[in-house]
């Protein structure tokens, strides 16, 4: 049995690994449903337009209508993915994209092949074979993806995190306790530090209630690791406390450690 992963790891020639988050079954299903609606709408539109030709010849109108439906239903996905860099209307709406499984530029032949092989994925109905393949495949690939060497990933817009503004400032009163701050750097587990940093970076995306709860949890934990004097933390909100701790952990500044003189 394959080991399922939720992201596609690609190693560059320099030996550095980066990961692309794989799209889930439900997201792909919803994108497909959306595309189905688009195809039906386009077909209805084209049917109306080509019926103008029926005024000249009924045979021509009917023939174009039939061809129009066939071309749209079979060519829509390929054309969109080709012109929209691996996306269809549905995929764009649900934030997913087809990419090469090795992180390279998609070739037209890959897009044609993954769409031609839909015929097998659709068996016996409603993409049952494709769905099973998607669930069993380690990279969440349907059969067409496997043959064409493509995967569908989530498109997540990443912004450069504004670290300078969130890692505390010159008013970080915790940093004045050099020994405690040094102990904090030594004692706090990496995953806790990472979680605290993530919380600080994403705090504006949390609603008010969860924001309070998240920072209370972190603050309680961090206070249990290192006890700062009560007068230092008195009146300091949990969020400010965590922010100051994160500042100590991630800012490379000298700590004021008192020197013992003999």
């Amino acid at each position: 049995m394959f080991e399922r992963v939720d992201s596609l790891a690609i190693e560059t020639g320099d030996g550095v690994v980066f990961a692309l988050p794989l799209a889930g079954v439900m997201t792909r299903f919803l994108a497909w449903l959306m595309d189905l609606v688009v195809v039906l709408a386009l077909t209805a539109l084209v049917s109306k337009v080509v019926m103008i030709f029926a005024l000249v010849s009924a045979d021509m109108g009917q023939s174009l209508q039939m061809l129009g439906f066939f071309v749209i239903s079979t060519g829509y996905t390929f054309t969109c993915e080709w012109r929209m860099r691996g996306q269809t209307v549905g995929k764009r709406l649900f934030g997913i994209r087809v990419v090469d499984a090795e992180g390279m530029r998609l070739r037209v032949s890959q897009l044609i092949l993954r769409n031609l092989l839909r015929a097998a994925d659709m068996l016996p109905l409603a993409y049952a074979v494709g769905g099973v393949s998607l669930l069993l495949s380690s990279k969440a690939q349907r059969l067409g993806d496997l043959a064409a060497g493509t995967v569908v990933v989530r498109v997540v817009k990443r912004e450069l995190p504004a670290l300078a503004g969130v890692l505390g400032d010159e008013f970080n009163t915790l940093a004045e306790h050099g020994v405690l701050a040094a102990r904090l750097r030594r004692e706090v587990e990496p995953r806790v530090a990472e979680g605290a940093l993530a919380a600080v970076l994403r705090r504006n995306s949390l609603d008010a209630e969860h924001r309070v709860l998240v920072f209370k949890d972190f603050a309680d934990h961090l206070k249990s690791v290192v006890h700062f004097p009560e007068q230092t933390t008195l009146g300091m909100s949990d969020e400010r406390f965590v922010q100051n701790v994160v500042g100590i952990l991630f800012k490379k500044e000298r700590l004021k450690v008192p020197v013992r003189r003999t």
Partner: protein
Amino acid sequence: MIVDLPGFVARHTPCFEELSQRLQRIEQAPDKTFTIEEAERVHYLYQRAVSALGQISSLPESNELRRYLEALVARAHVELHDSRRRTTPFRPIRWFTGVFPRTFRRHLRAFLIATLVTILGAVFGGFALSVDDAAKETLLPFSHLLGDPRERVEAEESGEMKGGSHGTFASYLFQNNLSVSIRTLAFGLFWGIGSIVLLFYNGVILGAVCFDYLRAGESLFLAGWLLPHGATEIPSILIAGQAGLLLGRALIGWSDATALEDRLRALAPDLVTLTGGLAILLVFAAIVESFLSQYHAPVLPYSLKIAFGVVELLGLIAFLTFGGRAADSPALPGRQYV
């Protein structure tokens, strides 16, 4: 664990932002060619980003930053690492007259196997009908073929069955035959077995129809009816079977130590070429079937129709045998699978 993240970000931000902007321009105009200076600059910025990612990827603390850098490196990697990009523009006529027949010949054994399977199906279809006449309803999915061949020939020759919707009929035939071809190719994903089943089934239908008309003494009508469009339609389905068998062969990977992904990656362009070529042949077959095959003697003498079909078949054989031969070279890319 501890790193001066704000300092790190401040030092690298101009580089990251420039790379992001350049990538955005490339993504918006993917067909635009790089100048040497642009390519060098993007490559330099990419290396800086990779280096930065390398520095922080050992630090789980910097998750947000790492994700940002991973996304940036992924975008740049796509644009920079593609040695497979087409260096010459796609020329449809040169592709059809050169690349398609060469690809066909490169995988001739798969085509011969597809032909053999279809012939076996045809023999079975004829045999089944010879021992059980009632099997006709099961074997033939088309209502107009279920009747007595003699009655049909009489009706056709008397002009009772002529209709005026040739365009609609041609469109129907094209989409039906292309759908059958696509299925024959796609079912190759089941290790080639699906393609074999469909080829055999098509053979059964063909064999049963031929036997039915031959038994009724309508061999001349049969040849005049089937040859004009069948000369291109049947080989097209066989080419689809050829592609399906290649796909199955690549999936199984007999006597090929290459990784599955590499085998499929190498085969993909050939599958697309074969499918594109057969689609063009099917357009021709649909037009012939709609505008020529449906007319019979005395409107069109059978000898003329048969001669047309024979010439067409010989032309197709010549095309697939000699097409693009001038450019044939042992160094041509592509893996021999069957």
